[in-house]
């Protein structure tokens, strides 16, 4: 099965005014996503995950690397050709309100992609907008409102309606629910799942919220300072994390279940700036498992088991962390009823 999205050796450097070295936002990232699947990219600030999302859609020009969507290499396309395939690949933004033009009505916002890429008449657009709004769980009347008149959760639904208007095959979701309350968040995630099942859309879900990633994604890549440090199917990552950063990340997330206490795998210090990256392994300044070699050797992504890749020279020694495994709690069992 050919993956719908394939990223090969993506690199992005930014030149920063006044700094001697460029900001290495993304360093040699490669991954692929199968049709109708959801890939998650998790990381904290400076990880480069947002930049990856933008580069994959070529909204930012990559410094080097290939991006193949449906077999087409985006990096070689002219601007006009790129614009003509945009209907196939869309983006949902982090801040719902900021991503909507405050002067436009919801109806106008959702109709914009139709005006740009279709020859629908005004009436046809009107109908399609109503249809899209209903698809994302909003009433038709919302079309006449302005963004500031509706709640944040609804604003994000508008953003999603706009993104699916041209029936894209692939959507990049950049922290689409991080600024929402937990209930609105859950509703939007459920909506995304529903849309994926009905329309067969492939998602790239970028987030720092591990709980949501675990719920939504099939496949996860963990990024730290521009590199993928671990990549595997979701449950595998959460049950058997190998990379020290992944472990630290997982143990840092407070689990909404007082019966579960994760082993504390703590990273010391602060996240280094992407302008001044440490030599060797980017994590070595904070890693409790750092060895002398970590200071000088740059680790590569290696396969440690079927479909599980880790970028750490001590991966095999560290092995699989059994303490991360847990039985579903009583709470989760009853919630699943």
């Amino acid at each position, binding site marked *: 099965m050919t993956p719908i999205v394939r990223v090969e050796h993506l690199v992005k450097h930014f030149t920063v005014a006044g700094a001697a070295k460029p900001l290495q936002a993304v360093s040699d990232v490669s991954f692929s996503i199968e049709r109708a699947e959801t890939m998650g990219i998790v990381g904290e600030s400076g990880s480069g995950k947002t930049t990856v999302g933008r580069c994959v859609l070529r*909204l930012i020009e990559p410094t080097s690397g290939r991006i193949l969507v449906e077999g087409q290499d985006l990096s070689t396309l002219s601007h006009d050709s790129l614009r003509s395939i945009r209907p196939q690949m869309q983006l949902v933004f982090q801040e719902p309100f900021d991503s909507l033009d405050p002067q436009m009505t919801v109806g106008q916002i959702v109709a914009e992609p139709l005006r740009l890429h279709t020859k629908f008449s005004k009436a046809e657009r009107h109908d399609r907008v109503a249809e899209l709004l209903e698809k994302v769980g909003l009433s038709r009347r919302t079309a006449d409102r302005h963004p500031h008149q509706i709640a944040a959760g609804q604003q994000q639904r508008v953003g999603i309606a*706009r993104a699916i208007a041209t029936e894209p095959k692939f959507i990049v979701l950049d922290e689409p629910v991080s600024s929402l309350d937990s209930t609105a968040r859950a509703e939007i995630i459920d909506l995304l799942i529903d849309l994926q099942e009905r329309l067969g859309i492939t998602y790239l879900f970028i987030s720092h919220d591990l709980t949501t990633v675990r719920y939504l994604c099939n496949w996860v890549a963990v990024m730290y300072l521009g590199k993928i440090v671990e990549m595997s199917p979701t449950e595998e990552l959460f049950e058997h994390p190998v990379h020290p950063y992944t472990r630290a990340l997982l143990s840092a997330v407070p689990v909404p279940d007082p019966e579960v206490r994760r082993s504390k795998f703590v990273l010391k210090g602060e996240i280094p700036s992407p302008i001044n990256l440490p030599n060797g392994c980017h994590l070595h300044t904070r890693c409790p498992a750092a060895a002398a070699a970590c200071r000088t050797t740059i680790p590569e992504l290696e396969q440690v088991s079927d479909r599980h890749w880790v970028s750490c020279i001590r991966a095999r020694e560290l092995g699989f962390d059994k303490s991360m495994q847990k039985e579903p709690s009583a709470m989760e069992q009853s919630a699943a009823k």
Partner: protein
Amino acid sequence: MGLDSRHLRYLIKTRPSALVGAAIVAVALVLAVIGPTIAPFDPRTAIPGDQLKPPSFGHLMGTDDNGMDIFSRVIASPQTDLTIAILGTLGAIAAGIPLGLIAGYYRGFVSEILMRVSDIVQSFPVFILGMALVVVTGQEIRNVIYVVAVVNCPIYVRLVRGQVLFLRERPFIEAARALGGRDRWIIREHILPNAIGPVVANASVTIGWAILLTAGLSFIGAGVRVPTPEWGSMIAVGAKNVYTGEWWPSVFPGIALAFTVLGFALLGETMVDLTDRTRR
């Protein structure tokens, strides 16, 4: 803009100055239309023998040294002053918007040139520039309008440019690009409608200043010509009489001028506050 009756009520409660301003502007606009028609005396005709009569029931504001009724001339002036000020402001806006859009959206060489030219125009003292332009082009109402437009154009170029610079970084602009919109589309559909708010709000303030400019130019003899009724020229004509105790030919137009400019300023200030994005 999303103003509804609830907002208006709040406005009335917290900003009485806006109401005062609005009232004055309304009166001025009405007079601009019907002023000369309802004047008790013809504002342009001198009645010999009636010179320098003090205020009385027949002549509410007295007469000037040509024998013209001051009250009639005072209420006939808005037609001149406001026409010049409003048309001039519209001219400044009509030129300022496209220039500001270009300067803000396409940064680089073109933008730099535009900003430097604006700097140069703005660095001249307003009256000197106004005077010079009128001398060069001839003392006609049409040219005074051009002067008002030229002098105020840089303000709008800067204002629009500032809005554009702010708006280009907004996520909804990036969203439009992600949808496949080209530059022209983005400017037309997204940037322009969002940039226009402050422009409209500032128009009232500009009109106020333009009235003052017109009056000032007329006062020094570089604006509207006698006998066209105009507050500035009226003040100038009556100035020499103040020494001899006949204060009414200068003072009444002066008060009218001050009130009118104040009205536009009060209204404008509130409008600027309302459209100011940081308030949200």
